[in-house]
C-alpha cells in the first residue's frame, strides 16, 4: 500500500532518499535547499542513519564521500554558492569513482544572487565545474512526485555507474507543494561487488569496476591522484592517465542510452520545445492551448549525459526552442546536435516563462 | 637474531648512526648500485636486541628500527650453528 501525501519538493527529495536507503546525510544550511537537511535531521536518526551538520559545504561533500566508501548510501543537498564550494571534491568523487548523490536546489546567481528565487544556472557547472575531464549524471525533476522518484533513482545510477550523481532541482520545484504518492518500497540496485581476484580499479567492458567498500578486507587505496588498476598513484605515465580518464568519461557517456530518461510529445511536430525541469510545465500549458499536433515537446529528466539521440525523435522538426531559467546553457548542447535552427529562450530573474512568452516565441518561429 | 639493513630501501640518511647507543652503525663510504651510501655495520653482534630478543620474548631497544624513516632496518632469524667439515690442504 502506497501512501499519498501533500508535500513540497524538498520534503519529497528527503523521502525519496530515505526510500532508496540513504543512511548518511552531511550538509550545511543554505536557502533554498535547507528543508532537505531539516527533513533528514528529523528522519535519519529514527531510520538508523546519521545526520551531521558539517562546518561548510567543502566538509559536507567530503563527509558524504567518506561515508560512501564505507558502503552506505550518502547524500548532501545545497544550492549555488555551496555547490561552487563543493566542486573540488566532486572532481575527487569522479576520480575515485565514489557513488554519492548531490542535490542542488538551484537559485539565482552568480555569487549570493537571489537566494529565494529559482534558476537553472548551474547546469554547465554540474557537468564541467571541477577541473579536468570527467563525466557525471544529472537528473532534472519538474514536479514534487518526480523529485521523489528521481532522488531514489539517483542513488541507483550513482551505485551502478560509480559516479557522483546530481539531482538538479530548483527553488520552484523545491518549494512547490503537490500531491505525491510514496510507495512502500522502491527497487534498489547496488554496485556490483569487487570480484575475487580483481584489482580495486580494474574495470570490465562496461568500464565500471566492482566496488569494495572499506571493511571488506580488500585493503583498497583510494586516491585522487592518477592511479593504476591497483589504486596506486601513477602520476607521470601519460598512458596511465589517458587510460584512466578516458574510462571515467566513457563509462558514463557510452551508457547514454541506458541512462537516458525523457518524454516525447507530438513527434511529428515541426516546432519542438526542448525542456528540463519546471519550464516544461509552462510548455505543457501552452500545448494544452494548441490542441493540434503542431507543437512538439522533448522533456529531459536526464540532462547529463546528454541524450542527443532524443532530439532526432522528431523527424519533421524545423525549429527547436529551448526555454531555460538561465542565459542559455543546455541550448548549446542542442545546437551541437541538430542542423535545424535552435532558438534559445533563456529567462533569468527567478520567474518561470509565462505561457504568453512561449506563445510569442512559437508564433515568431513557426 | 641478526641485524640487517635492506639496501633496496635505505636512502643513506644515517639517522641510525646518530641514535644507536652501541655505535653499531658507521657511515658508509661506498656507493651501492642505487647510488646511495648506506651505513655499514660494525660488530652487530653487540646489539642487545640481536642477542637477547629471543630470551626476553620482546623487542629490546629497537631505536634504529623505529627511527629508520625508510623501514630498512630489521632483524632476521639466523640459521642455527651447524658444524661442518673443513678440509685443509697442505
Amino acid at each position, binding site marked *: 500500500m502506497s501512501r499519498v501525501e501533500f508535500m513540497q519538493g524538498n520534503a519529497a527529495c528527503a523521502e525519496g532518499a530515505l526510500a532508496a536507503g540513504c*543512511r*548518511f546525510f*552531511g550538509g550545511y544550511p543554505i536557502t533554498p535547499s535547507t528543508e532537505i537537511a531539516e527533513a533528514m535531521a528529523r528522519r535519519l536518526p529514527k531510520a538508523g542513519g*546519521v545526520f*551531521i551538520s*558539517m*562546518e561548510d559545504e*567543502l*566538509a*559536507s561533500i*567530503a*563527509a*558524504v*564521500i*567518506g*561515508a*560512501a*566508501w*564505507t*558502503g*552506505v548510501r*550518502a547524500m548532501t543537498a545545497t544550492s549555488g554558492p555551496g555547490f561552487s564550494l563543493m566542486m*573540488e*571534491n566532486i572532481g*575527487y568523487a569522479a576520480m575515485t569513482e565514489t557513488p554519492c548523490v548531490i542535490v542542488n536546489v538551484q537559485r539565482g546567481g552568480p555569487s549570493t544572487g537571489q537566494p529565494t528565487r529559482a534558476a537553472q544556472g548551474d547546469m554547465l557547472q554540474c557537468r564541467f565545474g571541477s577541473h579536468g575531464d570527467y563525466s557525471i549524471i544529472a537528473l532534472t525533476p519538474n514536479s514534487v512526485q518526480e523529485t521523489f522518484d528521481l532522488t531514489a533513482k539517483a542513488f541507483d545510477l550513482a551505485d551502478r555507474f560509480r559516479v557522483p550523481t546530481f539531482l538538479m532541482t530548483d527553488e520552484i520545484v523545491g518549494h512547490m507543494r503537490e500531491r505525491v504518492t510514496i510507495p512502500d518500497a522502491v527497487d534498489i540496485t547496488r554496485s556490483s561487488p569487487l570480484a575475487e581476484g580483481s584489482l580495486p580499479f580494474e574495470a570490465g567492458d562496461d568500464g565500471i569496476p566492482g566496488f569494495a567498500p*572499506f*571493511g*571488506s*578486507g*580488500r*585493503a*583498497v*587505496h*583510494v*586516491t*585522487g*591522484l592518477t592511479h593504476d588498476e591497483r589504486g*596506486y*598513484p601513477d602520476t607521470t605515465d601519460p598512458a596511465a592517465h589517458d587510460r584512466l580518464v578516458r574510462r571515467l568519461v566513457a563509462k558514463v557517456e557510452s551508457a547514454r542510452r541506458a541512462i537516458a530518461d525523457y518524454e516525447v510529445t507530438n513527434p511529428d511536430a515541426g516546432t519542438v520545445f526542448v525542456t528540463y525541469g519546471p519550464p516544461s510545465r509552462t510548455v505543457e500549458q501552452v500545448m494544452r492551448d494548441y490542441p493540434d499536433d503542431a507543437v512538439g515537446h522533448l522533456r529531459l529528466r536526464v540532462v547529463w549525459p546528454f541524450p542527443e539521440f532524443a532530439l532526432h525523435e522528431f523527424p519533421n522538426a524545423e525549429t527547436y526552442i529551448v526555454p531555460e531559467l538561465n542565459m542559455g546553457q543546455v541550448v548549446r548542447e542542442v545546437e551541437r546536435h541538430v542542423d535545424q535552427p535552435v532558438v534559445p529562450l533563456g529567462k533569468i530573474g527567478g520567474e518561470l516563462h509565462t505561457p504568453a512568452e512561449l506563445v510569442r516565441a512559437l508564433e515568431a518561429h513557426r | 637474531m641478526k641485524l640487517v639493513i635492506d639496501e*633496496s*630501501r635505505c*636512502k*643513506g*640518511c*644515517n*639517522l641510525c648512526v*646518530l*641514535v644507536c647507543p652501541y655505535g653499531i652503525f658507521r657511515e658508509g663510504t661506498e656507493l651501492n648500485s642505487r647510488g646511495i651510501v648506506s651505513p655499514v655495520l660494525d660488530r652487530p653482534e653487540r646489539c642487545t636486541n640481536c642477542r637477547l630478543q629471543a630470551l626476553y620474548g620482546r*623487542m629490546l631497544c*629497537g*631505536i634504529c*628500527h*623505529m*627511527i*629508520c*624513516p*625508510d*623501514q*630498512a632496518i*630489521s632483524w632476521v632469524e639466523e640459521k642455527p650453528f651447524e658444524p661442518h667439515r673443513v678440509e685443509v690442504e697442505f
Partner: protein
Amino acid sequence: MIAPDWLREDRLPHIYCTGCGNGTVINCTLAAVEEMGWKRDETVFVSGIGCSSRAPGYILTDSLHTTHGRALAFATGVKMARPEFNVVVFTGDGDLAAIGGNHFIHACRRNVDMTVVCMNNHIYGMTGGQGSPTTPPGAISTTTPYGMSEPAFDLAELAVAAGANYVARWTSYHVKELTKAITAGMRTPGFAFIEARTQCPTNYGRHNKLRTVPAMIEHIRSHAMLIEKRDRLVREGRPVPEDIFTIGELVRRNRPAMGVRR
C-alpha cells in the same frame, strides 16, 4: 615494533626524501596499531594532500588519500557512518592548519572518535618549501626569503582549546614516547591529536643552516622542552627560553565524544 605486514611492501621505498621524519612517524603509528591489536578490515587511514598525506598509500589497509585540507571531514564521514572502524588521519601542518584549519577546530569540537597524527615539518614540503602557518618567526623559506614575519600556530594548544579529548606533542626523534602517545590517543575515546615535529632537511633545513639530517634532528631535540620542565621553570620564576616548544601530554580528558564504537 612496527608491524611489517601492515606495510605495502610493493610500494617501498617511499617517496620521502633522505632523512625525512615522516617515515619515522609511520613507524611509530604502525607500532601503535600493533600495540592496539587492530584488525586490518576494521581500520581506515585517511589523509589529505602533502608529504605527510602520502603515508596511507604505504599502509596495507583501506586508505583514503583525499583533497588538500579535507582529510578530517572525510574521516568524520567514515567514522560517523561506521563507528566500528578505527580511523587514523595523517596530516601535515599546511594541510591541517592552513587550508584545513576550519575542519580541524570543528573536528576537535565534535570530538569524533579518531586519532589524528600531524607531521609538522614547519613548511609546505611537497611544493618545494614555502612558508606555512607553523613556520617559526624569522625562518627562511621560498616564500619568506627575508624571514617569516607572521606568528606561528601552536597546533597542540589549538586542539586543546578546541576541545580534543587527547592532545600530545612529541618529535620524530622521540620515537618511544611518540609511539606511546599515539597508542594513548588511540585508546582514548574521542578526538586524539598527536603533533609530531618532524625534520625536513630538504626544504626547511636547507634554507635555515640545518643542511644535514643530524643538524636538523639536533635542532629539534634541543628546542624541545618537557611540559613539566617548562612548568617548573615558570613556577620557580626562572626564564623560559623564547624559541622552545613543549613536548609531552597536554591533555587527556573525557568530554562527550561522537562516533564512539557502540
